[in-house]
């Protein structure tokens, strides 16, 4: 006897930890743990076990389709006057429990029936009310002959009538009850729904009894008729896939059903308890079956079945979670690498050659000798004067404020960034159609919102690292190419002053139409002029090195910018759920589930 108790205690300790961790993981993953098969059963029976007194409490539920006579049998077994046998279908809308006198305590009952609201049954017709699905009406009864245990008998609503809300009430009680008395009338035993529920009972209960009620007496011997039905049911069950599942003891549900005891009662105007008889006359009666329930053995079995179901369900759940995480991880990495590629391609296409020329000229000037400085002085004055005139012309034309030469590169960059945030989501939508749709992560509205937020921001200004590196290169170059360096230090001034002269003429003749040409001497566009400039001055290697550095540096700046300013917002769900799932203690839960299964094996053997 104590062997069972020991097993229960071991399992109970594990189950407490397993339930707490499992609930945490499931809720975090957005799954209600109640949807995991066996979970509710384990939770309820475990919670009830912790509240057991010195005498084990067993719950036996009557279970069956509408009109099978559940309430009639309940009334006969307990003497509690619940409405039964009438013409209404369905008849009961609430669960009703018959408890031994010593359990007549709402607090004690609430602990034994977690999730139920226990209310003392005052008016029997309350059972027809369906106001609160969690309501459990109870009354005390005299449990004759039952010793060693407290037996609570429960009557539940049906699971197959048009009032679908009843179905859940029956299911909830099935999770709690260790013993099931399955009732059926002859015409319903082969109904699809009824067989489906029978499978459920075989999977979840510790002990099952099958009762065929209302066997028509006119067709012949009721026992013979009931025997035919029972054998036909077993024959059908043998061919149904659902009955091949295994219980904790290793036997199949079909074997479990076959070994369960079957009873019958003939149709009668005055139903009575002694009419319920075993189909096999050598086996004990229903009452002695109920009286002889071995408390701890059934309690153990009642925990083992849902524990096995829950462990299997958790394994499945962890499996789907792992594949979900894998999908998230692949997608997250794909998006990051594509953003990186775009950042690189943007950086590659926009090298600021003009800026490099400026630096080159600056460096050359810095190094020129005093002689050259004197020579170029007048040109410098001239070009400065020219700049003043240009500014004046701009002011007259209404162009207030400066137009820095780098504006063009920025505009180009912005338009390429814009293109990136238009193109990328479209590619991702093509690759992952499940994210498309009004509610999808990549819905048009979300893409657009992220785009508009992104457009409000400006890309970060390029750092100067590449410039200082280029200046170092130029130093070496200037040492090796003295003449060229001198030349560079002087000629630009001449060009600029020449273009200023052009500008003055231009202003008077055309109103400044050629102003733009003057700009060309200051800043070359990326293509032709810049390249020519570098080739002529043996500067190609310097330029190439500078461009390489620029690419790496700018890509390194744009990649995090695209991520933080845009992708983090658009892909928030993807990225946050990946982080969330990665942080869950999945391994630990899997370990617990393994332990539970081992414990179930050990307990099943006991």
């Amino acid at each position, binding site marked *: 006897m104590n062997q069972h108790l020991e097993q229960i205690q071991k399992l109970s300790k594990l189950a407490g930890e397993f339930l707490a961790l499992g609930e945490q993981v499931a809720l975090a993953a957005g799954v209600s743990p109640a949807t995991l098969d066996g979970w509710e059963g384990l939770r309820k029976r475990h919670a009830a076990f912790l509240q057991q007194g010195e005498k084990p409490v067993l719950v036996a539920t009557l279970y069956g389709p509408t009109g099978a006579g559940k309430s009639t049998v309940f009334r006969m077994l307990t003497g509690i006057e619940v409405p039964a046998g009438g013409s209404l279908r369905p008849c009961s809308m609430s669960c009703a429990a018959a408890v031994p006198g010593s359990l007549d305590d709402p607090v004690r009952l609430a602990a034994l029936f977690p999730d139920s609201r226990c209310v003392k049954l005052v008016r029997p017709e309350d059972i027809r009310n369906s106001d609160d699905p969690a309501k459990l009406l109870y009354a005390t009864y005299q449990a004759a002959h039952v010793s060693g245990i407290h037996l609570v008998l429960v009557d539940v609503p049906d699971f197959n009538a048009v009032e679908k809300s009843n179905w859940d009430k029956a299911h909830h009680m099935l999770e709690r009850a260790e013993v099931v008395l399955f009732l059926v009338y002859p*015409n319903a035993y082969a*109904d*699809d729904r009824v067989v489906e529920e029978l499978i459920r009972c075989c999977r979840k209960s510790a002990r099952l009894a099958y009762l065929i009620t209302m066997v028509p007496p006119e*067709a012949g011997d009721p026992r013979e008729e009931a025997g035919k039905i029972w054998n*036909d049911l077993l024959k059908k069950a043998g061919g149904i896939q659902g009955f091949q599942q295994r219980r904790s003891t290793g036997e199949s549900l079909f074997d479990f059903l076959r070994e369960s005891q079957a009873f019958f009662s003939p149709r009668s105007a005055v139903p009575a308890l002694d009419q319920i008889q075993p189909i096999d006359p050598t086996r004990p009666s229903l009452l002695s079956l109920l009286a002889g329930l071995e408390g701890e053995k059934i309690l153990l079995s009642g925990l083992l079945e849902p524990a096995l179901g829950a462990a299997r369900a958790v394994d499945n759940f962890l499996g789907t979670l792992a594949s979900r995480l894998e999908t998230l991880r692949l997608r997250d990495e794909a998006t990051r690498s594509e953003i990186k590629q775009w950042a690189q391609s943007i950086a590659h296409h926009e090298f600021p050659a003009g800026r490099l020329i400026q630096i080159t000229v600056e460096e050359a000037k810095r190094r020129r000798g005093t002689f050259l400085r004197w020579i170029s002085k007048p040109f410098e004055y001239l070009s400065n004067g020219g700049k003043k005139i240009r500014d004046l012309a701009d002011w007259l034309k209404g162009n207030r404020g400066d137009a820095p030469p780098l504006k063009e590169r920025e505009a180009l960059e912005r338009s390429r960034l814009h293109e990136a945030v238009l193109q990328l989501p479209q590619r991702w939508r093509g690759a992952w159609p499940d994210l498309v749709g009004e509610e999808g992560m990549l819905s048009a509205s979300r893409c657009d919102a992220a785009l508009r937020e992104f457009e409000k921001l400006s890309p970060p200004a390029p750092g100067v690292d590449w410039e200082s590196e280029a200046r170092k290169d130029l130093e070496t170059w200037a040492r090796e190419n003295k003449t060229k360096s001198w030349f560079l230090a002087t000629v630009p001034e001449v060009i600029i002053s020449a273009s200023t002269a052009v500008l003055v003429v231009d202003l008077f003749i055309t109103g400044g139409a050629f102003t733009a040409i003057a700009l060309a001497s200051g800043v070359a566009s990326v293509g032709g002029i810049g390249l020519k400039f570098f080739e002529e001055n043996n500067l190609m290697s310097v330029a190439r090195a500078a461009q390489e550095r620029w690419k790496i540096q700018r890509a390194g700046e744009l990649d995090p910018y695209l991520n933080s300013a845009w992708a983090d917002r658009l892909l928030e769900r993807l990225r946050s759920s990946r982080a969330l799932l990665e942080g869950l203690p999945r391994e630990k839960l899997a370990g617990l589930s393994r332990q539970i299964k081992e414990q179930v094996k050990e307990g099943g053997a006991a």
Partner: protein
Amino acid sequence: MNPGNLQVQALKEKAGRLAGFCDRFSTWPETLRASLRLREAVGGIEFDRPEIRPVLIVFLGGTGVGKSHLFNLLLDRPNASEVSSAVRPCTSKPKLACSLRDRSGLQGFLDLDTVDLIEAPLEGVVLADCPDIDSVDQANRERTRRLVHAADIVVYVTDPEKRANFAIHQEVEEWSSRKRWYFVLTKADYWPKEKEEIRADFDKRLIELGFSPGPRTRFFISCLEPAQPEFQELRKTLLGRRSAELRALLPMDQFLGRLKHALDPALGKGIEANLARLREVEAQLDARLRNAYYQALRQSECADALKTLVREQVWQQAGERVGLFLWLPIWVRNRFAALGISWSLGQILMGRASLFGLVGLGLSSLLAMLRGHLPYKKVAAALGPAFRQEVESIRHFVRLKLEDLKIPLPTEEKEESEAHAQEKKGWGLMGVGAAFESIAAQFRKKQPEDEIIAFLRADLERLGERAGRKKFGPMVAVLGNLLPCVAVGDILYRAASGWIAHEYLPWNFYGMALLVFLGTLLPGFLWVMQRVWSTSEVPDLKELVEQVREPEATQGLRSARISVEELHREFHGLLEQTSQTRAILAEELDSPLFGEVSRKIPGSV
């Protein structure tokens, strides 16, 4: 041809058209289902020689409720269909009872190999006992459904125990809108006391399903007591003689039932929801585009250009309004001004130098001068890169939104056909033609802002006209032309009097006269100039952008909305016509011999 057939023909056509519409939206589950059901309704019913077709009455119910027992009793043959007291389900192959004469009429619409035929002395009626629809034997369900599908009238048989079973109710509900019905409760002998209570409760369930049960169509019987009046009534009703004329209406009734079933209100609701969504997004994006126009036109470059254009418009008006001699200098000025304005606007637009740009600019300015046109297009081009980006974003949004709503993009088709046409041309001219064509297409390519030009132009013209009217009244015309008039009068007087007196004036007189004339134009011209420059009117941009009602950028949404509207219209049109025809037919068939129909709209709770 009888009028009924015409009606059916018209409905068939409509249904076919609606199915076509639904196919366009086959990515929506509701429309796909509707399309399949519509095609099934259109093609599935045999209308040939309806007068020889017997009425097919089918029993539908759970296992063990007594269908076979009832069947045997009605035929007066105890072993026609096997019955059992214990083992369920009992019947697995449907049994059909009919006379030899009616058998040939059945062949058109029923596969007779799947059923057991029993010869019975029935007239114009075929009675079918079907397997159950609620046992573990799934194949039974399929056999029954095939038969129910073909049936004209369904008898829902149940007993007091199974009368509230969910699975059976669901099956009845699924067929309720398509069939004509009788309802039979069996095993009345088990419940002698509660009989009336049970009957009332059963009626309640039937009313929930949309029926109005009454003694003509609902029977509570006992197969053990076939002599009871209610059983006799049932026998009379089911096996009674139905006139050939009314029987001939049954195929049409079935057709209408299937149509009604196809036109599920859930589909109508789905269409309406999508339509509302499309309208909302369209309005939202149109407003956004108008705002983009507004913001772009408000920026300083555009505003300056607009001011210049208004003044030019006033200049044009000045020429016409002042008229007479002053018209000449104003006309000359306007032609040259077109050149200058075009040039300077072009500069704003280009921003930097390029040789091609300058040449192009020069050419277009020259063209502007020759035509005397104002370069409106250039204002639109000055809307700026931010504006273009916004338009691009909106286009993109439209594309994604349609994808989200699972509506095929309407533009694809057009582009494809264009590409196809180009390809053809290319082949014809050995590829050279195609190359030219594609270059030309680049130039012809419509800019998104072209749409606002027309409005801008009309607006500016209106403004210019208003300002012109205000600035150049008759007073200006009279006073401005006064001096030239006097001069011309004097010159003409002198010349004429000289001619009359035969004293020919010296040639230099004409030269001087011309110079004097031109001189007298100057004060008037300066005055006009001053008045033009004092114009400060600018177009009301808010009003202007409001005129853009159907922007090109949201065209995709609009055409999608229009086609969903069409679908909506077709759906409701057909639904209404079906309901009307069905109501008329229901009146015709309003006899106990034809059962009753459900008034419930399928899909509603």
